[in-house]
């Protein structure tokens, strides 16, 4: 049961990373929510806004966890990611594990590799296993992929395939820090003469602690009304005049070509649970769903070209949906949760 220990651990980690990554505090917390929901994280932003630093900081802050890094380049091959059989003189061909066999995988500049190479990550991100030459090998648990990328309109990049995009639980966007934060960065850099610094040991968590927290997230209660709200949100993004599962009278946003997947539904629920736990609560409220909806859903929406031309962003579409959809009424939820007596109704899920 997540309680104050979860919140304490979470805050400890967040403040440790926050010392390295100035500004973007909200992004750091979202990234950690993603970590504890055991989801893969995609960090996006222009060059020089500490995307890679954030990825490294997350990896460092868990002691005892293996972390490896792949610098994605256009000439990178799938076997460079997954590993391959290596013939050594006088020996049987031996499997040389690739960098994915680790706990935290940093995939830097992921969109600089060709789609062929990017696809090498599909299996491991989806199923936490690697199949090479007919042999399937599991990667260690937990397995998290933290990727960074520049927005796709830069030259020499390949946009991520949809299947790949969908496997990321969240996409967070980092921006240039404001003046005060940038002053901090500058001061710190000048005094330390090294960039970036290290996370102080007292602010790290052990791998065991992180695993316990990950399993605690699954215990966060999601009320039926909150589940309904969550389904309302995903249904509202979907195709068709009244997309499958959407409520009567709802129309799909005109800018959207493809709505979000069922994987997104699960990811949204899990992220909401982790967000609730990070606030020290044992239950997920509609606020938690709202807080994570944009990073969880926005990157999965496929917008029409006309909408993209107009400058409409997926984040804006999701934000508008959240603004329009009614949240569950606390009165009705309480009535459903609590039976006539003082006992909660049978808990579902």
């Amino acid at each position: 049961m997540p309680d104050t220990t979860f919140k304490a651990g979470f805050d400890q980690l967040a403040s440790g990373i926050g010392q390295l990554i100035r500004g973007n505090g909200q992004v750091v917390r979202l990234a950690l929510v993603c970590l504890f929901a055991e989801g893969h994280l995609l960090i996006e932003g222009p060059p020089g806004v500490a995307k890679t630093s954030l990825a490294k900081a997350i990896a460092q802050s868990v002691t005892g966890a293996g972390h490896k890094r792949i610098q994605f380049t256009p000439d990178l091959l799938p076997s460079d990611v997954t590993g391959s059989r290596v013939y050594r003189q006088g020996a049987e061909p031996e499997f040389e594990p690739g960098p994915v066999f680790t706990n935290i995988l940093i995939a830097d500049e992921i969109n600089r590799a060709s789609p062929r190479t990017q696809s090498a990550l599909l299996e491991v991100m989806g199923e936490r296993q690697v199949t090479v030459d007919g042999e399937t090998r599991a990667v260690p648990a937990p397995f998290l992929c933290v990727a960074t990328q520049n927005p796709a309109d830069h030259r020499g990049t390949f946009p991520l395939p949809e299947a790949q995009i969908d496997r990321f639980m969240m996409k967070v966007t980092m921006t240039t820090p404001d003046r005060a934060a940038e002053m901090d960065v500058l001061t710190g850099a000048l005094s330390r003469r090294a960039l970036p610094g290290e996370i102080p040991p007292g602010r790290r968590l052990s791998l065991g602690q992180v695993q316990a927290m990950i399993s605690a997230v699954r215990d966060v209660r999601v009320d039926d009304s909150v589940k309904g709200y969550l389904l309302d949100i995903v249904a509202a993004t979907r195709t068709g005049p009244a997309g499958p599962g959407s409520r009567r009278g709802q129309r799909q946003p005109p800018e959207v070509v493809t709505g979000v997947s069922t994987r997104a539904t699960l990811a949204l629920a899990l992220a909401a649970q982790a967000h609730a736990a990070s606030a020290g609560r044992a239950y997920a409220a509609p606020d938690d769903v709202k807080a994570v909806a944009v990073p969880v859903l926005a990157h999965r929406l496929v917008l029409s070209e006309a909408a993209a031309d107009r400058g409409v962003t997926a984040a804006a579409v999701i934000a508008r949906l959240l603004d329009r959809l009614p949240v569950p009424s606390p009165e009705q939820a309480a009535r459903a949760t609590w039976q006539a007596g003082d006992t909660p109704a049978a808990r579902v899920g």
Partner: protein
Amino acid sequence: MTSRRANVQLGAAAAVLAGAGVAAGYPELVLLGAASAVAAVAIRPAAPPPSPRPPRPGRDRARWQGLPRGADVVFRSLRYYQPGDRLSLIDWRATARRGGSPVVREFGDPREPDEALVPEGAGNPGPVARPATQVALIATALALTAVLYGGFFAGWGFLPRLAAVAAGACALATVVAWARLAPAAATLAGAIGLAVAAELAVLSGGLDPGAGWDALTGGWAAMLTVAAPAPDSPPMLMFPVIVTWVAGYASVAVALRARSVLGPAAIVTGAQVTGLAFAANQPATHLLQAGALAVLLLALTLIRAGRAARRGHHPLARALAPGIALVAAATAIGLLTAVASRPADAAQRFTPRQLLAAPLRLPSARSPLSSVRDQVRKPDPATLFTIAITGTTDPPPLIAAVALDSFDGTQWSSSDSYRVSGPVLAPGPPVAGGMPLTERVTVRALAGPYLPADGWPARIDAPLRPGILVGFDPGSGILVADAASLAGVRYTVTTTAPPAHAPLADAAAGSGPAVAPYLRLPGKPGWLTALARKMTRGQRSPDARLQAIQRSLRALPVTPDAAPGVSYGRLRQLLQPATAQEGAGYADQHAAAFTLLARAEGIPARVIMGYRLPSPSSVRGDTRTYPVTTADAYAWAQAYFPGHGWVDFDPTDTGNVASAAATAPGAPSVRPSAQPQPSPGHASTPAPVPTAPPTTVASPPSAPAPTAGHGPGPATAGLPAALAVAALAVLGVLAVAGPTAFIRRRRRRRRHQGSPAQRLAGAWGEMLDRLADTGVVTGGSQTVRELADQAASAVAARQAPGARLSRPERALERAEPYLTGLATAVAGAAFGDVDPGEEAARQAWEDERELTKALYRRWRAVHGARHWGIPVPRRRRR
């Protein structure tokens, strides 16, 4: 109101309106109701437009949009260009697509949805769609409601005044709304404006506070008791001016300061209903006016529902383009429904004036018919009045004073209902070849209340004696004055006199519900119909039959000393005499017999008591003066022919004097003591009238008959009207009590039912309702925590220097301690399974009470009225 609530309200209002229209006999209301019902189904309110945000100069895009520096700026939406927007924000592609109106892009931070509460109370009305068009529509609609008073007032001089009042009210309300005066100040401004408008429009600049106040308080009663057409004098005009002013001011204020879709139209409809109730007593219906009003109000509602398009050229056309089909269809359906339902004859419909007795205090006159003989038999004929007739050398020889239309078997009485009247009188039935006469009457000694006039009066002019009110029944054409003695009264009356010989040869007798009272024959005795058939044998046309009856009656001997009485029994003796004594009669009996025989033949007829015109005493130019004395008292009959009006028939031949034997005082049916004894003052004292059957002497129901409002017509018409009033009253009570009871019951349920967690959440719901009453928009996509944060930011805003909070913000600021304290517990109880416990639930309801106290620090009782079923915006979705 941007939810379906508005449609439900519109539908309910439409049903009530149409129902009231059917019940009270107003097709105009049916039309409005049906059109509104169509609109309720068809109008779907649009989402409110995004509020414009002031642009700011700067190099950073975020700062142009008023966002904090460093915010992530993404496209949010498009909106129309407003003066002051940066030109570089114009989206030229979208502009081209939308036909030329410049469109700008709006940007925002995706992670911090900055959609705030949009308070829709008085403090922050938000943008109003097409304010100028709305105000113009309201002013036009109100000017249109003034048309209703057209049948009420003599002449149309009131119309420009009322239109000016409507325009003035709308203009003042616009200025007040523009200046954002506080509600109290706005009300004060409206009251002052009303005083000025009343001063200019009603009192015409003559400053007379006393008269103004009288008109202000007594105007409505004066309107209800006066007979149309009324003079546009201050007491009459004041009430329409008040209605128009208040409706215009309130409607525009609501239109510009609130987001209620229906409010302005509802207020104008109220003015329409008031106008119908007060002024639509004339038989004409106002379907055309109601249809035009429906068009205007539907257009107004369309604009307010945000359904008006923005394309096109002319602003009005642009506003109405997509709704024109709807408006036309709704009005057409309403018109058809109104014509099809046609609830009742327009003349029969209910008006509030049926409930208000006229302030005419008429002396209870004795049976006027029996007074004929009393006067004739006076030994010294006294001059009653002199009448100077201008306009013809040959005036009709009979001057009518009283029309008697109802017969109960023994007595004739009048069912006239007199209304206070101005100088101009309602027009009577058309008379072919009628000639206008002017008569100056000077009364010497005449018992009230009837004012004699030769012909159908069209206008009566002072000088009357001060303090005497003139009454008029437009149905019978009889004038009265509310004085017991008319001695000294002078008046000039303009009449339409029928031609001496009306060409009645082929004229049909009157028929239909309007003349039904003049065909009533109680009991319809067989001997009467048989006698009538015998008299009229061989005659076809109504006129010929009446002439035959008249000939038969004129053959009877006449003497004022004959046995009196006009009962069936006495008249049968008269018409089928056993002795010569029985066969002798006088004008009153002949007139009564003629009327009964005519009715038996199916021809509407009535008895008239009045005076014969003597020979003129002086002739000056074309003015002849006649001194009328008691010896000239007379009675005759009138029959109704459409197109010719009431035509006189004189069934008495006064030259045919009965022999002395017929007048023997020992006639068996006459009691000696009842023999009329001429005595001074006899005419003004009610005396039992001797009739043939002694048991029916001066039967109580008919004796005081000629007083106002006692006739059988209004009495029978009053029942459905009373039912309609009762139904409306019940509806009104339900409309107030229903929501109130619902609100109370919900509160009780929330407070006492279920587990502590449910009661805690109930307290939260109740708090939100209290906040909604103050204009805070809650619910929708806003979570518990977000509302608490909103309240916290209102507290923070208060601490900023020079802060001026809007009303909803103030409410949130006061509610903040209670909201913040409860938010976590509510979320835990609702979405977690955290049991708050009894104590917390109790505390929550105490907080709820404290919150109400905090919200309404002053005028708590007044604000309490908001819970009395007054619809307030609540729980709206953004």
